[in-house]
């Protein structure tokens, strides 16, 4: 009878050709060694230009294959060059999302236990009810657009970045919804949860934002959506409102909880923004298609930036609503414009930016 050693199937139990070939060897890592993110991501979505010997074998009725570069106006000489700087795959994604969920739940539970919610300034509660709550629909719309967008990228790395972006946006939209539902009982009827949607749908302040969000949703080019959301809509509208207003004004009105909820969205955006900038920079600097891509992105900017600027200006009256003011709209707006310009410079689209560029 064979001994344990003789029948062992452990690595190194025998030496023969490739007994020690213990790295995925079909792709070139970006760094000296492959990262775990690369190993579980690269080439999982095949490509006829790499290993897909027989090409795509089911097509749409018009002949478009399962994945087609025609689904975006951007062109690439190597779609596979992109790696997400946040290196997100399933495990870190769940870890991060769970950490956020727990952070918010603990903060809200503690705040409520201390009776903090009942001490919120009543005017501020109205702002939360009408405007913070309205913003959840904008966040949700962006999540839905990204969920749709993750279908079409030419590589797994691109689609994964868009997918986790969708997951973050949809979680945050739910964070706001359930946060307001959680604190509403402590406000004894002072917070009408239906008002957020009412303002989103009918308040003149929010209509240009809603038009912008619906315009992004109506786009069929997934990279256009990814660009519009993280280079234009986030900084000009969503970050402007979250960090430029809510996070600044809440504490003065006895509210230390809402900034906790908002802070998660800002951390999410930082990651998604860096991913987007990295991808768009690759496109803008593509050795073959760079000039074309810069032209396309400039067109997207021409389309979305004025809509966003107009939408931002329409939100201005919200900055006048709190009883105590800390940070005027113009300051916040200039920060947003400056943010867009920084992003455009990072991408290599200098000179295409906001009002002050």
């Amino acid at each position: 009878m064979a001994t344990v050693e003789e029948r062992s199937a452990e690595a190194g139990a025998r030496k023969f050709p490739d007994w020690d070939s213990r790295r995925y060897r079909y792709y070139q890592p970006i760094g000296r060694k492959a990262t775990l993110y690369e190993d579980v991501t690269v080439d999982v979505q095949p490509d006829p230009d790499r290993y897909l010997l027989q090409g795509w074998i089911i097509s749409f009725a018009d002949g478009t294959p399962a994945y087609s570069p025609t689904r975006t106006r951007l062109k690439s000489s190597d779609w596979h060059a992109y790696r997400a700087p946040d290196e997100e795959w399933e495990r870190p994604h769940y870890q991060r999302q769970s950490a956020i969920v727990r952070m918010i739940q603990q903060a809200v539970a503690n705040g409520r236990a201390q009776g903090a919610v009942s001490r919120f300034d009543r005017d501020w509660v109205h702002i939360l009810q009408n405007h913070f709550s309205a913003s959840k629909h904008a966040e949700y719309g962006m999540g839905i657009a990204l969920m749709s967008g993750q279908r079409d990228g030419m590589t797994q790395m691109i689609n994964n970045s868009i997918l986790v972006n969708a997951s973050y946006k949809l979680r945050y939209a739910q964070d706001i919804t359930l946060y307001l539902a959680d604190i509403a009982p402590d406000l004894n009827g002072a917070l009408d949860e239906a008002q957020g949607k009412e303002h989103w749908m009918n308040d003149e302040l929010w209509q240009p934002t809603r038009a912008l969000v619906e315009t992004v949703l109506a786009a069929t080019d997934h990279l256009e959506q990814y660009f519009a959301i993280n280079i234009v809509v986030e900084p000009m509208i969503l970050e402007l409102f979250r960090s430029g207003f809510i996070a600044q004004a809440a504490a003065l009105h006895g509210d230390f909880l809402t900034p906790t909820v908002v802070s998660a969205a800002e951390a999410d955006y930082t990651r998604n923004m860096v991913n987007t900038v990295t991808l768009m920079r690759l496109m803008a600097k593509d050795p073959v298609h760079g000039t074309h891509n810069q032209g396309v992105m400039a067109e997207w900017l021409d389309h979305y930036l004025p809509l966003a600027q107009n939408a931002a200006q329409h939100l201005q009256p919200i900055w006048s609503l709190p009883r105590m003011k800390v940070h005027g709209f113009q300051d916040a707006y200039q920060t947003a414009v400056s943010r867009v310009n920084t992003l455009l410079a990072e991408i290599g689209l200098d000179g295409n930016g906001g009002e002050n560029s």
Partner: protein
Amino acid sequence: MATSLSKITAQRGISLAEATRRIADLGWLPTYAQQALKYPTDYKFVKAPRDPMKQVLRSYFPMQEEKDNRVYGALDAGLRGNMFRSVEPRWIEWMKLFLAIIPFPEISAARSMAIEANVVPGHDLRTGYTMQMVDELRHSTIQMNLKKWYMENYIDPSGFDITEAAFGKCYATTIGRQFGEGFITGDAITATNIYLQVVAETAFTNTLFVAMPSEAARNGDYALPTVFLSVQSDESRHIGNGHSTLMAVLNEPDNHLLLERDIRYAFWQNHAIVDAAIGTIIEYGTKDRRKDKESYAELWQRWIFDDYYRSYLLPLEKYGLKIHHDDVQAAWDRIIKKDYVHYVAQFFSAGWPVNFWRIDPLDERDFEWFEYKYPGWYKKFGAWWENYRKLSKRGNPPIVWADTGYVYPHRCWSCLVPCLIREDMVVDEVDGQLYTYCSEQCRWTHKVAFASEYEGRPTPAMGRFSGRRQWEEVYHGWDLADVIKDLGFVRTDGRTLVPQPHLEFDEREMWTLDDVRGYELRSPLVDLRQMTPEDRERHIAEYRKGFTVHKV
């Protein structure tokens, strides 16, 4: 009486039903710009589906993180317990094939949620689709990680190390690509709801992700069950999504004809593809020959026939839907009476030089088990496996080129599994071109279902079969050694083959390119198309008669 912490900290909150109602209210009907339907469908909706699971993302993420912690903890435990000292190499070798295929259907399912959310009205089920989207990212990357773990710890990493490249090139994985591409192309509802959720996930993940892990554990592999039972725990959510969407689709009588078409296509193709792969791996990848263990046929009866057909498909008839009972019976007959799985295993072993995994020869214990579970098996397949064992030694011709009586099969244009049940092979023309099919159902799938019209009704959204679907056609007339080199199935010494027809971990016993040079690969379909009508008719009649293998 002690007071519990939860009693002290309890706070008023909203019910889960209230939470999901509020979340569903995040959506609205756009008025400034209409969202384009990026993906076409011929289905109509008169009502939006409801969310049966009533879950919210804030409970989803921590639950999934906890599941992950258990999975990764178990992988660590597997190493600490020296799993690879006692695991059966016969089993792990088949994981090179299985784990090369499965991440692609998984990530395709994530893409599929984009399509489904795009065409299905309402926002109730969006959270369900979102969770499924993230679940599928989980499955894809957790499986890639498992494969890497095998590669790092198993005695022969070759085949794992080229996994995604091999997936794109292998004659066997092309079958898996047909499966995964089915989730993301063609009619949006056909692909996402019927093919993926209603059939693949509701029926066939049970054999994929429950029956197969059981077999893994019997072979000393505790990693695969840990990962895949965790994956399967997500599937119940997807089954819920699928059923709820199906109920919304059913609500419109105009959809019934298309539903009947799609359930038929999806059931048959899932059967043809999943049963081929998983049946072979469970039956031929195991060393456990206990006779009280269920065979694949018995598993199929439990999971597919009883649990799915009788409990899920049949009740759909009360909504006026026509279910193809005859197809379920035909699939059952293919498994139990027509030796479908055994012919597939024979085909995979015939093709060993162009695999990227090893196939262990069967031994007497295997023969006895097969004969016990499938009486008459040895008479039909014994000679083949005796030959395989004998010819697995270097210096022999690869078994397909040996004089055994075996006839290399035609490939089915539809499911891409070869036409292995010879008497059932069908030949037909579509748009003036000749094709071969494994069955009447697969002929119907290509010619009737995947067309621009179905029973007089225009179906402009339905997909089309495309690309170089027949793997053999790519290498028609090539020398076998050149094929293997082109596939990249050569080890880094530039001569030793990745695939081997045995489990000898000894360089002297391992086949090299020199051992496989001088054998020409041909595409039966190309040859068939080039025949005169008379020769073709004779060839088809001969093919349908089958073959008899004799011992070499």
